[in-house]
């Protein structure tokens, strides 16, 4: 195969060879195909690899490739250090290959002598391969990292996967694993639960190493032997893993790749950690120790080891738990101060308020809620931290209405349960995918799988659009009721259809001022619709994959969207590009919600974590783990301190945002919880689920016990009381109608929505 090629060669075929042969054993040392004039060091790498004969490890090859690259880049010192550490003989590198020269090098440039070098280098290495074989048995992890610098064409993918090229004897993997199992079984009870956390990540990484190094049989045997031992909540992940049997499969899966690069976080107490460390270091189990060092991040804390129950409640996410530092940033969870508005005295007569911009001319009363606390709440963000839109006159009127309704609000509690009015969508043929209510509960919108969005009026007042331009020019602009005249009575109807998307609509959100409607869909766009004209105004293109959820900020103007591309984007209605991009999740973002003060955004994801992001600087300020399935619903408590989340595992978890802890677990639903809402004053949490029920939980009691426990914030773990039954205030079954959305009206009447699914 001593082919002599004269002209320059396209890099592509070279790269293909490179990626496929990086692990293959090819050729004959004698056929040093160094005759190929490399156009790039990459190409040189490619051609040299086939030449490196005899059943040798990939590590060897990559090492040499790196050496060669370093030489080419004139990083001689690094090259020397690496060579010394790798144990290669100096003479191999120095000699100018006469044998290679004879192969007839075409082309020119500085690349030539390198290829000659490398080929001779490799030919010698091949010869020395047999002797060097034994040195490969226990490679040190440090050798692996230089591989990272090897200039390869797909740096991120191959580099990541090349991290697995360290060799251990594949047959010994089960032995190592069983050895560890035996050790952990033998430790004291209090440590066993904590050390057992190591099993799952270790199992996965060892399995993936075997697959990457193409030991299919051993990988399968390893999987079959040990997958049953893992915790039940990792079942889904294990199922995916069982399908991966070849190296090529690993490349297509982004989530898996991210899983490899990010470290799996474990929280272990110092004592347990010492035990483990001592055990692994005194034996020859370097393999396990290597994996632990590379792929696991062990967050050590001083204190009592955790019990199995405590660990189980916090684990389940794709990347382990959250590091303590991740939850230490200060979060301003307080609410923004309400602006002062002059409230007209007349409470009974609400008719006069309807006309915009015409408050009653009675003696105005100062709004009390605004002026109550002059002092800034230390937990609340500055008023101007996030620029918020100014209040228009219509907004002020809205707020006045809000306050009036608030006075008529029913006080809820365990003795006084809310009444539930349920809106059933009939004839939806399993097509209803999203629902939202306006804040004043006058309109309801539904997103459907046939890509339509429909808006219904809940009140007897019909939906009217603005007249066409032709008609508008005819009306008398100076008349008093011009705002009524611009509305078109002829096409007034109970419901309006909005067409525009080209895929199922997965998320819907009304703007607080009831002028706009947002919808996000599988077609990767978010659309803004006007509720005055019932037409589409803007399409925001940024995600290239289905967008699963969207929501307007409680103050309007900003909105958030999250989708399959694993990032959440913050947009402003008047910018066609996002203002912020929040990336960090390992799997797609399934649910996005704004905090009541509009400074933070919570995203729930299919990687089973919830992250809280600061929209000012895009930082992730909290990571909450504990769910065992993708999260489909989030709800902030009205006081901004707590977050409730619901997932496919049917559990509702309660989180304290300030401390970054899980403070409650509400068990009861048997299927995915799609709807979560707190009552207007935060006394009751309502949850709706695919199991056709609406459940009411006592929120005050759930949060009560936890307020005083400050010492837990230091260690970061608490024991959750098993009080779901006590907290459950009521459970209401619908007639085969999964509950998709819940909304508390301003008077604390609970509205539910779902599609009848016989």
């Amino acid at each position, binding site marked *: 195969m001593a082919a002599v090629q004269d002209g320059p060669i396209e890099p592509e075929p070279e790269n293909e060879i490179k990626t496929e042969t990086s692990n293959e054993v090819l050729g004959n040392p004698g056929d040093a195909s160094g005759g190929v004039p490399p156009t790039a060091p990459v190409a040189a790498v490619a051609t040299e690899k086939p030449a490196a004969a005899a059943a040798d490890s990939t590590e060897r090859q990559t090492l040499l490739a790196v050496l060669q690259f370093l030489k080419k880049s004139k990083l001689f010192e690094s090259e020397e250090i690496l060579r010394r550490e790798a144990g290669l003989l100096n003479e191999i590198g120095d000699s100018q290959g006469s044998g290679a020269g004879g192969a007839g090098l075409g082309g020119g440039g500085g690349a030539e002598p390198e290829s000659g070098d490398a080929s001779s280098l490799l030919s010698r290495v091949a010869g020395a391969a047999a002797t060097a074989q034994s040195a490969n048995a226990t490679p040190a992890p440090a050798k692996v990292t230089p591989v990272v610098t090897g200039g390869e064409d797909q740096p991120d993918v191959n580099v990541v996967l090349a991290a697995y090229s360290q060799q251990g004897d594949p047959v010994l993997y089960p032995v190592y694993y069983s050895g560890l199992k035996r050790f952990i079984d033998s430790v004291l009870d209090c440590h066993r639960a904590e050390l057992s956390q190591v099993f799952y990540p270790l199992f996965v990484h060892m399995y993936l190493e075997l697959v990457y190094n193409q030991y299919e049989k051993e990988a399968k045997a390893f999987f079959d032997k040990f997958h049953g031992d893992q915790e039940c909540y990792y079942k889904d992940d294990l199922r995916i893993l069982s399908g991966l049997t070849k190296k090529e499969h690993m490349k297509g899966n982004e989530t898996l790749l991210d899983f490899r690069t990010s470290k799996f976080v474990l929280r272990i107490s110092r004592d347990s950690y010492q035990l483990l460390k001592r055990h692994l270091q005194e034996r020859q189990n370097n393999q396990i120790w290597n994996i632990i060092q590379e792929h696991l991040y062990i967050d050590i804390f001083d204190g009592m080891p955790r019990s199995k129950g405590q660990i189980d409640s916090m684990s389940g996410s794709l990347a382990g738990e959250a590091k303590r530092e991740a939850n230490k940033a200060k979060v301003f969870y307080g609410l923004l101060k309400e602006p002062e508005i002059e409230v007209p005295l007349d409470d009974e007569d609400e008719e006069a308020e309807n006309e915009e911009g015409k408050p009653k001319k009675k003696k105005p009363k100062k709004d009390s809620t605004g002026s109550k606390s002059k002092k800034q709440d230390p937990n609340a963000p500055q008023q101007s931290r996030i620029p918020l839109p100014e209040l228009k006159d219509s907004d002020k009127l809205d707020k006045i209405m809000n306050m009036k309704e608030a006075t008529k609000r029913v006080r809820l509690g365990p003795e006084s349960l*809310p009444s539930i009015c349920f809106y059933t969508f009939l004839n939806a043929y399993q097509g209803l995918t999203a629902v939202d209510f306006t804040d004043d509960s006058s309109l309801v919108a539904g997103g459907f799988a046939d890509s339509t969005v429909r808006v219904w009026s809940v009140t007897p007042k019909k939906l009217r659009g603005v007249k066409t331009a032709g008609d508008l020019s005819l009306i008398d602009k100076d008349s008093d009721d011009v705002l009524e005249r611009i509305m078109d009575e002829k096409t007034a109807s109970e419901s309006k259809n909005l067409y525009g998307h080209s895929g199922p609509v997965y998320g819907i959100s009304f703007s607080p001022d009831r002028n706009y409607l947002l919808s996000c869909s599988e077609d990767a766009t978010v659309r803004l619709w006007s509720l005055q004209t019932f037409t589409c105004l803007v399409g925001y293109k940024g995600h290239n994959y289905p967008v699963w959820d969207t929501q307007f900020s409680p103050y309007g103007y900003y909105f958030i969207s999250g989708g399959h591309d694993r990032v959440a984007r913050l947009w402003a209605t008047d910018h066609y590009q996002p203002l912020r991009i929040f990336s960090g999740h390992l799997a797609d973002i399934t649910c996005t919600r704004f905090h009541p003060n509009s400074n933070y955004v919570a995203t729930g994801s299919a990687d089973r974590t919830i992250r809280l992001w600061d929209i000012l600087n895009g930082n992730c300020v909290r990571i909450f783990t504990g769910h065992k399935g993708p999260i489909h619903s989030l709800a902030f408590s009205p006081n901004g301190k707590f977050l409730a989340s619901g997932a496919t595992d049917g559990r509702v978890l309660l989180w304290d945002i300030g401390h970054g802890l899980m403070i409650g677990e509400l068990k009861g639903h048997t299927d*995915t919880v799609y709807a979560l809402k707190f009552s207007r004053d935060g006394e009751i949490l309502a949850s709706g689920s695919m199991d056709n029920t609406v459940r009411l939980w006592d929120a005050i009691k759930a949060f009560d016990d936890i307020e005083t426990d400050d010492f837990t914030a230091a260690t970061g773990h608490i024991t959750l009381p098993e009080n779901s039954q006590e907290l*459950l205030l009521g459970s209401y079954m619908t007639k085969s109608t999964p509950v998709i959305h819940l909304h508390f009206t301003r008077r604390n009447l609970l509205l539910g929505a779902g599609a009848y699914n016989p």
Partner: protein
Amino acid sequence: LPGELMKGIAESIGVSQMQECVCVSECSLLSPSVCLCSQDALKFMHHGKRRKLMTSDIDYALKLKNVEPLYGFHAQDFIPFRFASGGGRELYFYEEKEVDLSDIINTPLPRVPLDVSMKAHWLSIEGVQPAIPENPPPAPKEQQKAESTEPLKAVKPGQEEEGQLQGKDKKKLLEGSAMKLKPRSTHELSVEQQLYYKEITEACVGSCEAKRAVRVNVVQNNLALLIYLMRMVKALMDNPTLYLEKYVSAAQRCLALPCPTLP
């Protein structure tokens, strides 16, 4: 994925005689893609707020990976796979019928499905679920039993002490019987009527020969009414929501009374 699969697919295209190892290797290449595709399809199903995986989910999942979706598999419920077995192998296939174009053009248009509409009802009024038709039937037998035998034990509205799964099964039964009962008017059978029914059944189908003969004579006149009545009572008995045990003790007491009246 078994190697048989690949063999079947090859044969359907027309490639016969594929080697075993080729089949197996092809299958192993295929399985993770299928796995990943179904994982993605599951995501679409979850976001579509459904429990059933539809063909559209799989189509969208393929679209995600820049693969053309499969055409021709739109079905309301289940894809009508046909089963065939022969030559030691079982096969499920989708029968692609060839239909004459003129037939399709000339068939009358199917009925337009009803449009989506929205209807409101009270799911709960101040904590209590009203017994209106839009709500599922009230508490099942067990709960009524609990209520009658242990009135002191407070049971919260809608709380089922048995596992939720049982509740689901019951619900299906409830639906079934609710449907059955709808065309009939639900009368509350008085104790006497129940007693009467008991007597009648005993007389008609009981083992005592003499009793039977007598009873049949008496009853012949209003046989139709009797049958109606019996069917109704059977429906009532079958209805798991109505707990008749409450009345049984009363019935037993009265049983002694009519006995002397029998000739």
